[in-house]
Protein backbone atom coordinates (compact mmCIF):
# COMPACT_ATOMS: atom_id res chain seq x y z
CA UNK A 1 0.00 0.00 0.00
CA UNK A 2 2.82 2.31 0.94
CA UNK A 3 4.66 1.60 -2.26
CA UNK A 4 1.63 2.38 -4.32
CA UNK A 5 0.97 5.71 -2.69
CA UNK A 6 4.60 6.83 -2.79
CA UNK A 7 4.81 5.89 -6.43
CA UNK A 8 1.76 7.93 -7.15
CA UNK A 9 3.23 10.92 -5.38
CA UNK A 10 6.43 10.34 -7.30
CA UNK A 11 4.64 10.29 -10.62
CA UNK A 12 2.55 13.32 -9.83
CA UNK A 13 5.61 15.28 -8.86
CA UNK A 14 7.54 14.13 -11.89
CA UNK A 15 4.75 15.15 -14.22
CA UNK A 16 4.55 18.45 -12.48
CA UNK A 17 8.27 18.99 -12.86
CA UNK A 18 8.11 18.11 -16.52
CA UNK A 19 5.23 20.46 -17.20
CA UNK A 20 7.04 23.16 -15.30
CA UNK A 21 10.34 22.64 -17.11
CA UNK A 22 9.95 25.72 -19.26
CA UNK A 23 9.13 27.96 -16.34
CA UNK A 24 12.02 26.65 -14.31
CA UNK A 25 14.60 27.03 -17.01
CA UNK A 26 13.39 30.59 -17.35
CA UNK A 27 13.99 31.15 -13.65
CA UNK A 28 17.42 29.67 -14.00
CA UNK A 29 18.23 31.90 -16.94
CA UNK A 30 17.30 34.99 -15.01
CA UNK A 31 19.71 33.92 -12.30
CA UNK A 32 17.12 33.00 -9.70
CA UNK A 33 17.98 29.87 -7.83
CA UNK A 34 14.81 27.93 -7.09
CA UNK A 35 14.73 25.75 -4.00
CA UNK A 36 14.56 22.70 -6.22
CA UNK A 37 17.75 23.78 -7.93
CA UNK A 38 19.62 23.42 -4.69
CA UNK A 39 20.28 19.78 -5.42
CA UNK A 40 23.35 18.08 -4.08
CA UNK A 41 26.18 16.05 -5.48
CA UNK A 42 25.27 13.19 -7.74
CA UNK A 43 27.30 10.38 -6.25
CA UNK A 44 24.63 7.79 -5.55
CA UNK A 45 25.53 4.28 -4.38
CA UNK A 46 27.32 2.66 -7.28
CA UNK A 47 27.62 -1.13 -7.55
CA UNK A 48 30.92 -0.77 -9.39
CA UNK A 49 32.52 0.75 -6.31
CA UNK A 50 33.43 -1.01 -3.11
CA UNK A 51 34.65 1.36 -0.43
CA UNK A 52 37.22 0.05 2.01
CA UNK A 53 39.88 0.90 4.55
CA UNK A 54 43.42 -0.33 4.96
CA UNK A 55 44.90 0.16 8.41
CA UNK A 56 48.62 -0.18 9.07
CA UNK A 57 48.97 -1.10 12.75
CA UNK A 58 52.68 -0.25 12.70
CA UNK A 59 51.91 3.36 11.88
CA UNK A 60 49.10 3.62 14.45
CA UNK A 61 50.37 5.29 17.59
CA UNK A 62 48.96 3.82 20.85
CA UNK A 63 48.50 7.31 22.33
CA UNK A 64 46.73 8.78 19.32
CA UNK A 65 42.92 8.92 19.23
CA UNK A 66 42.51 11.37 16.38
CA UNK A 67 40.31 8.98 14.38
CA UNK A 68 37.95 8.47 17.30
CA UNK A 69 37.62 12.18 17.99
CA UNK A 70 37.11 12.92 14.30
CA UNK A 71 34.40 10.26 14.06
CA UNK A 72 32.63 11.46 17.20
CA UNK A 73 32.78 15.01 15.93
CA UNK A 74 31.59 14.16 12.43
CA UNK A 75 28.63 12.09 13.59
CA UNK A 76 27.85 13.73 16.91
CA UNK A 77 28.26 10.76 19.25
CA UNK A 78 29.90 10.89 22.64
CA UNK A 79 31.56 8.19 24.66
CA UNK A 80 32.14 9.23 28.24
CA UNK A 81 33.24 5.81 29.42
CA UNK A 82 29.78 4.62 30.41
CA UNK A 83 29.12 1.01 29.36
CA UNK A 84 26.01 2.10 27.48
CA UNK A 85 27.73 4.87 25.51
CA UNK A 86 28.07 4.27 21.77
CA UNK A 87 31.34 3.36 20.09
CA UNK A 88 31.40 3.74 16.35
CA UNK A 89 35.16 3.28 16.38
CA UNK A 90 37.51 2.30 19.17
CA UNK A 91 41.17 1.63 19.75
CA UNK A 92 42.07 -1.98 20.50
CA UNK A 93 45.40 -3.10 21.92
CA UNK A 94 46.74 -6.49 20.86
CA UNK A 95 49.57 -8.21 22.69
CA UNK A 96 51.45 -11.27 21.62
CA UNK A 97 51.98 -13.07 24.91
CA UNK A 98 55.04 -14.95 23.68
CA UNK A 99 56.99 -12.12 22.15
CA UNK A 100 55.50 -9.26 24.11
CA UNK A 101 54.87 -7.22 20.94
CA UNK A 102 52.02 -4.81 21.36
CA UNK A 103 50.08 -3.12 18.60
CA UNK A 104 47.25 -0.65 18.76
CA UNK A 105 44.64 -0.41 16.04
CA UNK A 106 41.31 1.26 15.39
CA UNK A 107 38.36 -1.11 15.10
CA UNK A 108 35.06 -0.23 13.51
CA UNK A 109 32.35 -1.87 11.40
CA UNK A 110 34.26 -4.01 8.91
CA UNK A 111 31.63 -3.65 6.18
CA UNK A 112 31.53 -7.35 5.32
CA UNK A 113 30.55 -8.54 1.89
CA UNK A 114 28.43 -11.18 3.65
CA UNK A 115 27.35 -9.31 6.77
CA UNK A 116 25.91 -11.45 9.60
CA UNK A 117 24.02 -8.42 10.93
CA UNK A 118 22.04 -8.27 7.68
CA UNK A 119 21.35 -12.00 7.82
CA UNK A 120 19.77 -11.83 11.26
CA UNK A 121 17.89 -8.53 11.06
CA UNK A 122 14.17 -9.33 11.41
CA UNK A 123 12.92 -6.12 9.81
CA UNK A 124 15.39 -5.50 7.01
CA UNK A 125 16.77 -2.44 8.75
CA UNK A 126 20.31 -3.77 8.50
CA UNK A 127 21.27 -3.69 4.87
CA UNK A 128 24.22 -3.44 2.54
CA UNK A 129 24.32 -0.63 0.04
CA UNK A 130 25.34 -1.28 -3.56
CA UNK A 131 28.79 0.14 -2.87
CA UNK A 132 29.37 -2.29 -0.01
CA UNK A 133 28.59 0.00 2.92
CA UNK A 134 26.66 -1.81 5.66
CA UNK A 135 24.08 0.48 7.22
CA UNK A 136 21.16 0.55 9.63
CA UNK A 137 17.96 2.07 8.29
CA UNK A 138 16.80 3.59 11.55
CA UNK A 139 13.36 4.23 10.12
CA UNK A 140 12.62 0.53 10.36
CA UNK A 141 15.04 -0.55 13.11
CA UNK A 142 13.04 -1.81 16.10
CA UNK A 143 16.04 -1.94 18.42
CA UNK A 144 16.03 -5.71 18.96
CA UNK A 145 19.84 -5.84 18.89
CA UNK A 146 20.11 -9.18 17.10
CA UNK A 147 22.68 -7.58 14.82
CA UNK A 148 24.80 -6.64 17.81
CA UNK A 149 24.79 -10.28 18.89
CA UNK A 150 25.62 -11.47 15.39
CA UNK A 151 28.51 -9.09 14.72
CA UNK A 152 31.86 -10.86 15.31
CA UNK A 153 33.59 -7.50 15.78
CA UNK A 154 31.25 -5.92 18.38
CA UNK A 155 31.06 -3.03 15.99
CA UNK A 156 27.52 -1.93 16.72
CA UNK A 157 26.09 0.15 19.54
CA UNK A 158 22.59 0.68 20.83
CA UNK A 159 21.35 4.16 21.65
CA UNK A 160 20.03 3.97 25.21
CA UNK A 161 19.38 7.63 25.92
CA UNK A 162 17.33 10.35 24.30
CA UNK A 163 19.52 12.42 22.00
CA UNK A 164 19.18 16.10 21.26
CA UNK A 165 20.88 18.36 18.77
CA UNK A 166 22.01 15.69 16.34
CA UNK A 167 24.13 16.48 13.32
CA UNK A 168 21.89 17.12 10.33
CA UNK A 169 23.92 14.70 8.27
CA UNK A 170 23.78 11.92 10.88
CA UNK A 171 20.34 11.47 12.39
CA UNK A 172 20.54 9.34 15.55
CA UNK A 173 17.90 8.40 18.07
CA UNK A 174 17.04 6.39 21.13
CA UNK A 175 16.01 2.79 20.58
CA UNK A 176 17.96 2.14 17.41
CA UNK A 177 21.25 0.43 16.64
CA UNK A 178 24.10 2.31 15.03
CA UNK A 179 27.62 1.73 13.76
CA UNK A 180 30.29 3.14 11.50
CA UNK A 181 28.57 4.18 8.26
CA UNK A 182 31.84 4.85 6.45
CA UNK A 183 30.86 8.55 6.43
CA UNK A 184 28.24 7.78 3.85
CA UNK A 185 27.05 11.39 3.67
CA UNK A 186 30.59 12.53 2.86
CA UNK A 187 30.96 9.91 0.14
CA UNK A 188 27.57 10.79 -1.36
CA UNK A 189 28.52 14.43 -1.64
CA UNK A 190 31.80 13.47 -3.26
CA UNK A 191 34.37 14.09 -0.51
CA UNK A 192 35.99 10.75 -1.27
CA UNK A 193 37.40 10.23 2.23
CA UNK A 194 36.10 9.34 5.68
CA UNK A 195 36.55 11.52 8.76
CA UNK A 196 38.84 8.96 10.44
CA UNK A 197 41.13 8.56 7.43
CA UNK A 198 41.32 12.33 7.04
CA UNK A 199 42.15 12.81 10.72
CA UNK A 200 44.79 10.07 10.61
CA UNK A 201 46.36 11.73 7.60
CA UNK A 202 46.28 15.12 9.33
CA UNK A 203 47.84 13.69 12.50
CA UNK A 204 50.87 12.67 10.46
CA UNK A 205 50.59 8.97 11.22
CA UNK A 206 48.92 8.10 7.94
CA UNK A 207 47.87 4.69 9.21
CA UNK A 208 44.45 4.65 7.53
CA UNK A 209 44.03 4.56 3.76
CA UNK A 210 40.53 4.93 2.40
CA UNK A 211 39.54 4.13 -1.15
CA UNK A 212 37.76 2.08 -3.76
CA UNK A 213 38.76 -1.59 -3.54
CA UNK A 214 37.41 -2.25 -7.04
CA UNK A 215 39.64 0.36 -8.66
CA UNK A 216 42.98 -1.26 -9.47
CA UNK A 217 44.71 2.11 -9.55
CA UNK A 218 43.44 3.49 -6.25
CA UNK A 219 45.98 4.00 -3.48
CA UNK A 220 44.35 1.34 -1.33
CA UNK A 221 44.30 -1.29 -4.12
CA UNK A 222 47.95 -0.68 -4.95
CA UNK A 223 48.91 -0.99 -1.28
CA UNK A 224 46.91 -4.21 -0.98
CA UNK A 225 48.52 -5.60 -4.14
CA UNK A 226 52.06 -4.81 -3.02
CA UNK A 227 52.07 -5.59 0.71
CA UNK A 228 50.58 -8.35 2.86
CA UNK A 229 47.38 -7.62 4.74
CA UNK A 230 44.88 -9.61 6.78
CA UNK A 231 41.21 -9.62 7.57
CA UNK A 232 40.23 -10.00 11.20
CA UNK A 233 38.70 -13.45 11.73
CA UNK A 234 39.17 -14.34 8.07
CA UNK A 235 38.12 -17.89 9.03
CA UNK A 236 34.53 -16.62 8.97
CA UNK A 237 34.79 -15.93 5.24
CA UNK A 238 32.95 -12.62 5.42
CA UNK A 239 35.22 -10.79 2.94
CA UNK A 240 35.76 -7.58 4.87
CA UNK A 241 36.18 -4.14 3.38
CA UNK A 242 38.47 -3.18 6.27
CA UNK A 243 41.92 -4.79 6.20
CA UNK A 244 44.89 -4.60 8.52
CA UNK A 245 48.63 -4.69 8.05
CA UNK A 246 51.35 -5.58 10.55
CA UNK A 247 49.21 -7.11 13.26
Amino acid sequence: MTDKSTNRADIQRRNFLKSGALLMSFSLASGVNLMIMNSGANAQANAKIRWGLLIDANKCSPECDACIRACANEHGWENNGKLTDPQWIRKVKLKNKQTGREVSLPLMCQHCEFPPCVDVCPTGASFKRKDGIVLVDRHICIGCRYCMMACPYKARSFVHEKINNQKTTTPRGKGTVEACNLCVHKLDRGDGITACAQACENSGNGAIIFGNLNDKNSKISRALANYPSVELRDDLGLNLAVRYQNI
Partner: protein
Amino acid sequence: MRVLLGALLIFIFFANSLIAEDNFPLIPKATGKPHPEGNEFIRINHMDLLRHDRDLVVKEGIRNIDNSLAQCVTCHVVRDENNEPVTYESEEYFCRVCHDYVAVKLDCFTCHNSVPSAEVSISLFRDENAPFERLMAYLEEKDNDR
Protein backbone atom coordinates in the same frame (compact mmCIF):
# COMPACT_ATOMS: atom_id res chain seq x y z
CA MET B 1 -41.29 19.69 18.36
CA ARG B 2 -40.85 23.37 17.64
CA VAL B 3 -38.66 23.73 20.72
CA LEU B 4 -36.56 20.80 19.60
CA LEU B 5 -36.12 22.29 16.16
CA GLY B 6 -35.15 25.62 17.67
CA ALA B 7 -32.62 23.96 19.92
CA LEU B 8 -31.19 22.11 16.93
CA LEU B 9 -30.90 25.34 14.95
CA ILE B 10 -29.16 27.05 17.83
CA PHE B 11 -26.83 24.07 18.19
CA ILE B 12 -25.96 24.15 14.48
CA PHE B 13 -25.36 27.88 14.72
CA PHE B 14 -22.89 27.47 17.59
CA ALA B 15 -21.30 24.36 16.13
CA ASN B 16 -20.65 26.33 12.97
CA SER B 17 -18.98 29.11 14.87
CA LEU B 18 -16.92 26.55 16.75
CA ILE B 19 -15.34 25.24 13.60
CA ALA B 20 -15.00 28.67 12.07
CA GLU B 21 -11.69 29.62 10.57
CA ASP B 22 -10.56 31.34 13.74
CA ASN B 23 -10.18 27.99 15.43
CA PHE B 24 -8.02 26.46 12.76
CA PRO B 25 -4.34 26.33 13.59
CA LEU B 26 -2.42 29.43 12.68
CA ILE B 27 0.24 28.08 10.34
CA PRO B 28 3.55 29.91 10.74
CA LYS B 29 4.89 31.66 7.65
CA ALA B 30 7.85 29.99 5.98
CA THR B 31 10.97 31.60 4.62
CA GLY B 32 12.43 30.73 1.22
CA LYS B 33 10.74 30.04 -2.10
CA PRO B 34 7.21 28.62 -2.12
CA HIS B 35 6.67 24.98 -3.03
CA PRO B 36 6.44 24.73 -6.82
CA GLU B 37 3.77 22.05 -6.40
CA GLY B 38 1.56 24.38 -4.38
CA ASN B 39 0.78 24.29 -0.66
CA GLU B 40 -2.35 22.19 -1.09
CA PHE B 41 -0.37 19.42 -2.77
CA ILE B 42 2.28 19.47 -0.06
CA ARG B 43 -0.31 19.47 2.74
CA ILE B 44 -1.91 16.35 1.34
CA ASN B 45 1.22 14.54 0.16
CA HIS B 46 4.14 15.65 2.35
CA MET B 47 4.30 12.37 4.24
CA ASP B 48 4.49 10.34 1.05
CA LEU B 49 7.10 12.63 -0.45
CA LEU B 50 9.20 12.39 2.69
CA ARG B 51 8.90 8.62 2.88
CA HIS B 52 9.73 8.24 -0.78
CA ASP B 53 12.76 10.51 -0.56
CA ARG B 54 14.02 8.97 2.67
CA ASP B 55 14.21 5.57 0.94
CA LEU B 56 16.07 7.12 -1.99
CA VAL B 57 18.59 8.68 0.38
CA VAL B 58 19.10 5.81 2.80
CA LYS B 59 18.98 2.88 0.40
CA GLU B 60 20.26 4.34 -2.86
CA GLY B 61 22.37 7.22 -1.64
CA ILE B 62 20.56 9.61 -3.98
CA ARG B 63 20.79 12.91 -2.21
CA ASN B 64 20.12 15.31 -5.05
CA ILE B 65 16.43 15.16 -4.28
CA ASP B 66 14.32 18.27 -4.23
CA ASN B 67 12.79 17.88 -0.79
CA SER B 68 14.87 16.80 2.16
CA LEU B 69 13.74 16.98 5.76
CA ALA B 70 16.72 19.25 6.41
CA GLN B 71 15.35 21.62 3.77
CA CYS B 72 11.89 21.47 5.38
CA VAL B 73 13.15 22.52 8.79
CA THR B 74 15.35 25.20 7.23
CA CYS B 75 12.52 27.05 5.47
CA HIS B 76 9.85 26.30 8.07
CA VAL B 77 11.85 27.54 11.01
CA VAL B 78 9.87 29.26 13.76
CA ARG B 79 11.80 31.70 15.91
CA ASP B 80 11.12 32.62 19.51
CA GLU B 81 11.30 36.12 21.04
CA ASN B 82 15.10 35.87 21.17
CA ASN B 83 15.19 35.05 17.46
CA GLU B 84 16.38 31.53 18.27
CA PRO B 85 14.82 28.68 16.30
CA VAL B 86 12.37 26.69 18.43
CA THR B 87 12.75 22.93 18.58
CA TYR B 88 10.12 20.24 18.19
CA GLU B 89 9.67 20.40 21.97
CA SER B 90 7.85 23.70 21.54
CA GLU B 91 4.13 23.81 20.76
CA GLU B 92 4.86 26.58 18.30
CA TYR B 93 7.05 24.34 16.15
CA PHE B 94 5.88 24.35 12.53
CA CYS B 95 4.97 20.67 12.28
CA ARG B 96 3.34 20.59 15.69
CA VAL B 97 0.89 23.38 14.97
CA CYS B 98 -1.14 21.14 12.67
CA HIS B 99 -0.09 17.77 14.03
CA ASP B 100 -1.19 18.68 17.55
CA TYR B 101 -4.48 19.97 16.13
CA VAL B 102 -5.28 16.68 14.43
CA ALA B 103 -3.63 14.61 17.19
CA VAL B 104 -1.19 12.84 14.86
CA LYS B 105 2.15 12.13 16.45
CA LEU B 106 5.24 12.27 14.29
CA ASP B 107 8.55 10.78 15.34
CA CYS B 108 10.89 12.28 12.73
CA PHE B 109 12.54 14.40 15.36
CA THR B 110 13.45 11.62 17.75
CA CYS B 111 16.38 11.11 15.38
CA HIS B 112 16.50 14.13 13.07
CA ASN B 113 17.48 17.54 14.31
CA SER B 114 14.43 19.80 14.33
CA VAL B 115 16.28 23.09 13.94
CA PRO B 116 18.14 24.21 10.84
CA SER B 117 21.83 23.62 10.78
CA ALA B 118 24.32 26.12 9.44
CA GLU B 119 26.04 23.28 7.66
CA VAL B 120 23.02 22.23 5.60
CA SER B 121 23.68 24.49 2.68
CA ILE B 122 27.27 23.37 2.31
CA SER B 123 27.15 19.75 3.34
CA LEU B 124 23.97 18.54 1.68
CA PHE B 125 23.93 20.70 -1.40
CA ARG B 126 27.50 21.39 -2.23
CA ASP B 127 27.72 20.67 -5.93
CA GLU B 128 25.43 23.05 -7.75
CA ASN B 129 26.70 22.56 -11.28
CA ALA B 130 23.70 22.28 -13.56
CA PRO B 131 21.50 20.62 -10.93
CA PHE B 132 18.40 21.16 -13.04
CA GLU B 133 19.77 19.26 -16.01
CA ARG B 134 20.91 16.50 -13.70
CA LEU B 135 17.53 16.28 -12.04
CA MET B 136 15.74 16.03 -15.39
CA ALA B 137 18.23 13.43 -16.60
CA TYR B 138 17.62 11.44 -13.46
CA LEU B 139 13.86 11.60 -13.89
CA GLU B 140 14.18 10.54 -17.54
CA GLU B 141 16.35 7.62 -16.50
CA LYS B 142 13.80 6.55 -13.90
CA ASP B 143 11.06 6.76 -16.52
CA ASN B 144 13.04 4.54 -18.87
CA ASP B 145 13.55 2.03 -16.07
CA ARG B 146 9.82 1.66 -15.63
